[in-house]
């Protein structure tokens, strides 16, 4: 069934994120925290992180655009961002944040600007990847639901023909969707 295919897909995506250094071990810690009590914990935390970090990023941007930037404030903002990113295991973003902090300490405005752009970019990339990843994760549910419906309705004979075709179509779309996802992932690689 394509269900296992989907699972494999998700695992593959995750592995590539790790291999490419977007995520580090802290992400495993987050996944360990996910259980029956909080089944979507990782996704919740990541969403929360992106919301909070976007705010921080815009604050940093504002601080940088001032005529005489307050490096202390910049430093403290970057420190906060670094703490957040390290908490969810966003490795690349964290590294860029560290660099940015160093430039802030040296009060190198130019360096700060450049590094900040990098931070923003890495942040955006990670966001994209993780969103795709979570989509695949939730696809599992969608697929399960489809399968369930199919089996359920298959009991009634006079629906049989109808649903057979419907199932076929659903599966077809599902396959197409998977292909699309694969394409996405490969594009991002």
């Amino acid at each position, binding site marked *: 069934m394509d269900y296992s295919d989907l699972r494999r897909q998700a695992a593959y995506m995750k592995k590539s994120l790790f291999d490419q250094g977007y995520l580090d071990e*802290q992400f495993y*810690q*987050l996944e*360990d*925290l996910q259980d029956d009590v*909080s089944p979507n*914990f990782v996704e*919740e*935390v990541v969403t*929360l*992180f992106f919301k*909070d*970090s976007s705010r921080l990023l815009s604050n940093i941007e504002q601080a940088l655009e001032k005529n005489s930037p307050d490096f202390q404030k910049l430093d*403290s903002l970057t*420190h*906060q961002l*670094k*703490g*957040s990113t*390290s*908490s*969810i*295991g966003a490795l690349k973003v964290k590294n860029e944040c560290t660099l940015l902090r160093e430039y802030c300490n040296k009060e190198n405005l130019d360096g700060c600007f450049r590094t900040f752009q990098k931070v923003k970019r890495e942040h955006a990339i990670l966001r994209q990847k993780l969103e795709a990843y979570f989509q695949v994760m939730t696809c599992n549910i969608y697929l399960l639901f489809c399968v369930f419906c199919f089996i359920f309705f298959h009991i009634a004979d006079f629906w049989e023909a109808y649903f057979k075709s419907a199932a076929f179509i659903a599966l077809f779309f599902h396959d197409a969707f998977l292909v699309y996802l694969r394409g996405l992932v490969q594009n991002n690689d």
Partner: protein
Amino acid sequence: MEAMQKLAAPNASAGSNYGSGLAIVTVAGAAPEQFPAGLRVLVVDDDVTCLKILEHMLRKCRYHVITCSQAMIALSLLRERKGCFDVVISDVHMPDMDGFKLLELVGLEMDLPVIMMSADGRTSAVMRGIKHGACDYLIKPVRMEELKNVWQHVVRKKWNESKDVENSSSFEDSDRQGRVADESEYASSMNEGTDASWKTQKKKRDSKDEEDDIELDNEDPSASKKPRVVWSVELHQQFVNAVNQVGIDKAVPKRILELMNVPGLTRENVASHLQKFRLYLKRISGVTQHQAALPSLFCNQVDAKTKCGSLGSLDFHSLAASGQIPQQTLAALHAELLCHPSNNIVFPAVDQPVLLQASNQGSKFLPLEKEVAFGQPLFKCQSGMQKQLPPSEITVHGMSPGFSSWSSNQLGVTGSNNKHAGLSNIQNNSLLMQMLQHQQQQEHHQESFHYMVSDSNNAINVQPSCLVVSSQSPSGITVGCNSGPINQKSLVLSPQPSSNIQLGNNSLLASSNSTSNSSNSRLNNPPLGMPPAANGDFKDIGMLSTYYPTSSLSSSSVCTSSAAGWRPQNNMKISSINQRADQLPKLYIQGSEQIAGASVNQGQFRNLGFVGKGTCIPSRFAVDDLESPTNDKGFTKTSTFDDVEKVKQELNLDFLDGTKKVGNAMLPNFPSTDFLGSLSNDSQFLKY
């Protein structure tokens, strides 16, 4: 220990959502696990992501977690629920307060182990954390393994503290140790080894503690009694003198000890006392800064206290603070007097809400049986102060035995269980009378928290408005200066079938509605009988007569109550002075949860009778009489006390009406405990 553990668990499980949106309380199952379950952790971090992650991690560790994103909220939470936390985990960089400052405060006030966290992993930062006294310094990202070890810090700290000579803290510690040890007993083999090591440690420590007064008894901490160093007034006086001599900033325990030259006093005693003293001062200065709600009130009180202050400037501060924070003092006194191992000795009340919280807190932990003793010191404290104060100045902050105090100008007394008993500070010589009642618990003499403020007779007569606010825990009414329409009136807000307040001339008793705070006013004396309806709510009087047949009053003012409903819970009764001519006017406030309905009134007003003595002295209900009908659920008893000596622990709230006569009558009633007596009570606070 089991009992203690059980005690701890309900506390933790009773926690509710608090404050900031991120505060969540979970009750983790206390299933035996590898690490001690049920450890109560408070996490403070402004980073929401990290906070959420930490919370989940700690929950996985089977700890009870409460999260907080602001340091101020965390502090107030810690103060409010003393003894409800075992460890605090705090971030270093926070917008509203530095993490190290929070660390210091927590360490000083609550003496909890604090663990710092930061993304900054430089050695210098870590060193700074350790220097500030952090138990541990975690570097973000925080991993599960590090959090699993949190309990070790808790235990270690407590064992180290128990080595101290400090009696009270060690008493707490042994309590906590009992809990912690108990928690650890949940553990499996991992902890069994530590148990054994603990026991050996304990034996070692016991042998070391020959000269210590502490008896470490994990088995039955609550039963052990320890001789304590009693910081009597003289001793405290000596201490303060010594500190003044050396200079508060340069005060070192050793030096102070030398200066004090008291045999039998150890350096550790002095050290702990000094620590507490410093904390006290800090809190005082914090209180003076945070008087948003009642600036003048406290100032007045402070002024009043200055007159009385005869001890050094530091003592003045403590007195002022004690005046301002009476319930804390009382609680401390109470704790001190009863050698009660109280964790609540220190109640910082930096601002009114906190003050109120503290008062709530204070009321909470007063055990029932200590009521009597508690009453005494309270009383002494109050009376002592009164002696020194100008005639119109009586300050009463009280827990069960309410003792009203008032300053010449006005007075706000805060302290209600629920705080808002808003002291409305009436600027222009208005009287603020506030009665707070504590509901059900008062009935059981468990927590009575009264706040009575009455103005001096002079004030009443002269003052344009005397505002009496009665509030109860649920209602917590704050009344502003409602005296506008009333000249020279004493405004009595009575929630319920009100009582009769006999006021002096031209004093109006107004019972207030919940919404409008309007009150029936009545004039006293000269107009006999029913006072003219100065306010619109005169219907209350009619109602009163309906409900309280006995309420007719010849010479005294009519008791009016706003049946319309103040708050259902509040019930104020004022009884005329029957029994004793020199009774202090009392406003008997009883709270009930019922709506100001006839039922309540009828039940309560058994002897609502204004036995007009013609003296315009507010009548006073006998406590017993009123209490018996108060079988209403949640009917709050008000304590009545005729005079100082008779402060009872009944939880009746007395409303002291300040009429001229009342004032005069009241003053002489105060026992002539001297100021030092009260001071000793205050200073008892420092002892622990």
